[in-house]
């Protein structure tokens, strides 16, 4: 909205100061995330910019903390970096193990949450759904109930039925936490879905299964995928439930970070954080592209 011509000087001043205020708030939002990137290349084990870094002295920068991510936990970190060194990294390095665990748990939790969530969202978006609001409230509650309560409940429940310290238990718990995101995104996509398309398909003799796979699914795929990504990120970022129900075997990236921050915060944490920020930039791009695709598919054009 451009400044109207009838604006008085006070309004002009406000117009520009408003932009400045907004710029400052944007800096508040984004600066903390960006600032750790250069700091992770600090040669010194400090969390601030050294004078050499500010002078852009190449010696003040190094990849040592990234290297540390690979070597930490290895049996022979100083050996020659040949194939056996890399195999040592793959089998022993703490952060690599954590990444593997995170991906395994996140992947299966996402599958469970997305499949169950999408099927349920199909039911919820039907106009004839009974008790719609109540069921919706129950299904979204894992997002609302404080994570510490969920974790405490799961701790008792899993100890009783012998699921604590198992991958299966962790995957189920993470799937539960991801389900609200799938429900919200997929039902939002379904709301814009033209139901006459289903009737048209049925009219032409398609059964419910064919209708779902040939008509409905292609149109709602963008929503399903973004819901799945939300579920994955939720699992990938989850630490409290892992702390409560996971054993030492289930060391995930957030748990390893949590331990690192609590004990002795080392710049390696910043290296992990930088990698995770880049990861989230990629995810955000994918979600944004999917949203646009979904809008195009549904015929919504940006105004």
């Amino acid at each position, binding site marked *: *909205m451009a400044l109207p011509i009838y604006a008085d000087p006070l309004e002009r001043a406000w117009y520009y100061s408003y932009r400045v205020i*907004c710029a400052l*708030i*944007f800096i*508040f*939002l*984004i600066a*903390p*995330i960006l*600032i*750790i990137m250069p700091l992770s290349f600090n040669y010194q084990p400090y*969390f*601030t*910019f050294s004078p050499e870094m500010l002078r852009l002295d190449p010696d003040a920068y190094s990849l040592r903390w990234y290297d540390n991510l690979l070597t930490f936990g290895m049996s022979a970190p100083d050996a020659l970096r040949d194939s056996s060194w890399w195999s040592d990294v793959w089998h022993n390095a703490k952060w690599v193990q954590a990444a593997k665990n995170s991906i395994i748990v996140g992947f299966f939790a996402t599958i*469970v949450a997305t499949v169950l969530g999408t*099927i*349920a969202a*199909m*039911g*919820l978006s039907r106009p*004839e759904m009974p008790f*719609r*609001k109540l*069921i*919706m*409230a129950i*299904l979204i*509650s894992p997002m*609302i*109930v*404080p*994570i*510490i*309560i*969920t974790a*405490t*409940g799961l701790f*008792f*429940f899993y100890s009783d039925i012998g699921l604590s310290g198992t991958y299966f238990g962790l995957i189920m718990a993470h799937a539960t936490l991801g*389900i609200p995101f799938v429900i*919200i995104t997929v039902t*939002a996509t379904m709301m814009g879905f033209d139901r006459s398309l289903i009737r048209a398909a049925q009219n032409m003799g398609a059964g419910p299964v064919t209708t779902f796979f040939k008509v409905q699914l292609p149109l709602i795929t963008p929503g399903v995928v*973004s819901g799945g990504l*939300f579920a994955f*990120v939720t699992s990938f970022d989850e*630490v*409290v439930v892992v702390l409560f129900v996971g054993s030492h075997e289930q060391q995930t990236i*957030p748990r390893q*970070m*949590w331990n690192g*921050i*609590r004990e002795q915060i080392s710049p390696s944490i*910043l290296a992990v*954080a930088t990698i*995770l*920020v880049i990861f*989230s930039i990629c*995810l*955000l791009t994918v979600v944004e592209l999917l949203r646009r695709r979904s809008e195009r598919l549904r015929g919504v054009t*940006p105004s």
Partner: protein
Amino acid sequence: MASPDIPNQNDVLRTVDGIPLKTALATASRRARIRAFLLVVPLLVFILLTFAVPIGQMLSRSFTDDKFSANMVELGKWFDANGKAAPDEAAYAALAADLKTSAEDRSAGNVGTRINYELPGTRSLFTSAARKARNLEPPFKEAILALDPQWARADLWAAMRSASAPATLNFYQAALDRQIGADGEFEAAPENTQIYVKLFIRTFVMSIVITGLCLLLGFPIAHLLAILPLRHASLLMILVLLPFWTSLLVRTTSWMVLLQTQGVINDLLVWLHIVSDGGRLEMMYNQTGTIIAMTHILLPFMILPLYSVMKTIPPSYARAARSLGATSWTTFRRIYLPQTISGIGAGGILCFILAVGYYITPALVGGADGTLISNQIAFHMQKSLNWSLAAALAGMLLVAVLILYWAYDRIIGIDNMKLG
């Protein structure tokens, strides 16, 4: 599907099969309802198993603890028979018998722990008495009092009486800073041990402050995004969504890096000569740190609902108000602001709900006075191992959150929740 008992009247519309149209429609719509419901059933069962049942079980634990009642059987019988009577020789005999069994099956520690919840410092009373229980001879009253005169304490017997039933409200009493007094009735705990009520109040006050700050910072941003042309707005939207998608631990770590005494912000302030090198600000491990970091983390949850409401407000209303002679302030206050109320409500309640139950950020940057009720629950789960008290605190927090959730549903509607 033709049913024989339908009266054959000519004035009723019928389908080809001869069923009245009304019945056919009712059947069809009932089938459709069942089909829709069946799609939701798998997920509902899943959530019930992995979410509702565990939380229900936790809540039931907050009302029960059988560490004492399961091991002190004889004493339990005596309490059942005699109620609140003063302990006589029979009571001490029952106690001696129970101490003997507890020494044999090594449960004295558990029994002592249970009473220790009510009366701190009494655990060793049970463990040391159990060690010597084998040598106890009648008369038991003198024998036990000879071990430790503390066994005559009225509040100890009151605590044992209330612990002799597995079902108890003691943990909720403890969570409300109340304890068993000398007369066996609940009374307010001494001033210096009252922590939970204060902690609840602090949690709510800090959540209100954080929600207020989010509104203060989120409102201008959401408004700017809503009035800019969509192309620019979606670019700026990335700056809001990136923090939203970034790992919580990453954001907390960056704030720890920024807020440290030797961190970036303090260095900058020293360099700008705003503070002296010796007077670096303490911004971490206190309430300031928690509030700053949590405001940053919850800000997108305020901006997104506000933005989706503001986007739908037609700018012509404001222009009409201006053309009718309203100043820009009046236009904002009387025309624009009232239209954004639903967004403010949605964002405000969402931020508040999330803030009240926050755990990770306060645990890492909160220090001693910046922690919230969640951290106390975690403390009792992991350190003090008073699980029933943890469950009672969690139950109270859960009730608070569910009330807010209900309010959110009433005011905004859960179906209107959107992400990004």
